């Protein structure tokens, strides 16, 4: 990864300005590790214990219960209801993996630190993913808790579950979902509507990612939206893992998720670069 695209456009470079690859990697790592440490401490969102309680103990089981009961009411069928339970257990990561990640930039905006971040030479990818690391951890934690509810409250049968495959599906999905956090953050550099988008994203996956019913049941035009979101594959993989599928047999799904997530990550990264340039042109950086 190059440190700056602007640099490439320089007409001439003096020797001192040139950076060796090793130095670039070291710089990337410093920005990344510094941001990892800062990601927890500097983020207001998880500062209050109420937020922890709400996001781990209240919202996930409430959402799971809503769709569980809704499915019972409509289908009168426990299997259908349990289908939604697993989907919503994975979906419960949305808050940490997407909303909280998008919130980082938004928080930087209203406390006025975004400008000071932008004027640093730090690599944006290292900065962003580093800051998001804590949210990845929270995301996996919340989802793990949700699967415990799935077992004890909603009676999902874990007898055949392949825990390794389930664990990999949860962690991979947590990591890959931050790509949408980045995407929304990029929008936030330029538009004030970013948190609205983040709010929509908090629930959108319930509809389009096969959480409550298969993606194939969606109207045709909406299905690509589902397949563009890594969670869609994550939900499939989690269902497979609970039925006992091995990591290897879920390989294709997980690989698709990986490719999808990385693609979105790069789209988000270049969008961020583009929006940064656009914001410099229009002078809208510190508005929100």
């Amino acid at each position, binding site marked *: 990864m190059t440190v700056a695209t602007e640099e490439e456009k320089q007409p001439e470079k003096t020797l001192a300005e040139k950076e060796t690859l090793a130095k670039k990697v070291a710089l990337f790592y410093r920005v990344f590790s510094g941001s990892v440490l800062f990601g927890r401490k500097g983020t207001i969102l998880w500062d209050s214990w109420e937020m922890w309680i709400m996001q781990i103990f209240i919202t996930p089981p*409430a959402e799971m219960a809503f769709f569980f009961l809704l499915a019972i009411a409509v*289908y009168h069928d426990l299997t259908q209801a349990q289908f939604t339970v697993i989907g919503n257990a994975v979906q419960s990561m949305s808050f940490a993996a997407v909303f909280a990640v998008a919130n980082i930039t938004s928080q930087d905006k209203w406390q006025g630190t975004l400008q000071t971040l932008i004027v640093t030479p730090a690599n944006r990818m290292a900065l962003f993913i580093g800051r998001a690391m804590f949210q990845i951890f929270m995301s996996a934690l919340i989802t793990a808790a949700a699967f415990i509810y799935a077992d004890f409250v909603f009676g999902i049968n874990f007898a055949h579950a392949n825990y390794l495959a389930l664990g990999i599906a949860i962690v991979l999905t947590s990591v890959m979902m931050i790509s949408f956090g980045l995407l929304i953050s990029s929008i936030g550099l330029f538009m004030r509507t970013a948190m609205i988008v983040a709010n929509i994203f908090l*629930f959108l996956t319930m*509809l389009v990612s096969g959480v409550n*019913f298969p993606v194939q049941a969606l109207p045709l035009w909406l299905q690509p939206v589902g397949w563009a979101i890594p969670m869609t594959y994550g939900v499939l993989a989690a269902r497979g893992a609970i039925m006992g599928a091995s990591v290897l047999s879920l390989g294709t799904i997980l690989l698709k998720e990986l490719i999808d997530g990385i693609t979105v990550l790069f789209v988000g990264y270049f969008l961020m670069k583009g929006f940064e340039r656009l914001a410099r042109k229009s002078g809208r950086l510190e508005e929100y």
Partner: protein
Amino acid sequence: MVLSAKNFVADPQFVIPCIIAPFIFTMVSLFFIVSSSSNNVGASALLAAVLGGGLMGVWGTTVYGSANSIGFDRWNGTMEATLAAPSPLIWIVLGRVLWNTFIGVINGFIVLGIGMTWFRVGVGLLNPGLFVLATILTYVSMSSFGLMLSTVYVLSRKGGFIENSMEIPVYIATGTSFAVALLPFYALPISFIIGPTWGIEAIKRAAVGTAYAYGPLLPTGYWTDIAFMLVATLAYFALSFILFQRVETIAKKNGTIEEY
């Protein structure tokens, strides 16, 4: 009074979040109904579902909005100014809550409209007159509930936590999307004492005719529903009045209003 509330509510950043969850939840329930209706569940179930979605829209904005309009005061440091205003706090907050709930009604209509268009749900109301009456009374009842909730918020910023985490449980408990009878027995008393539960029941009764929320559990009728709701609503107003008097004294004494 209403103007100050407008400042807050008019911002799409605050309004839109309240409509997303109800919208998505309604869409999912419509997908459920459509996919299960090989045996023809019929128009009434679809209508009940979109109505439920609309009611969630109102609820969400009431619960979330009444909490946050006061939270907004805390942020801006105008809480003290609000407390120092010559009119009693309860009237100021009531104004905001009524306004928020009204925005909620608009939110509800949006959810309703989209749901109806997308799934081509018919508007054939069984009894339009009773439907309108029940809707208006439910609006008042939801406002009274919001008013009562907001006392918590005047006292402490933790109120936001309580109210935010109540959103989905309230959808479940008041039978917006499915019968309350599905809930475990220990949850039933909670939904019985929430006034709007009865209103939602009455609205659905007037719209599609079937006793939706309680099912076989409590074979009540439209007017009993209304009566139960009115009792609950009056109780909320009375309770709010008492709570606000106490809260105002406590808040002024402890100075907890200043901590944002």
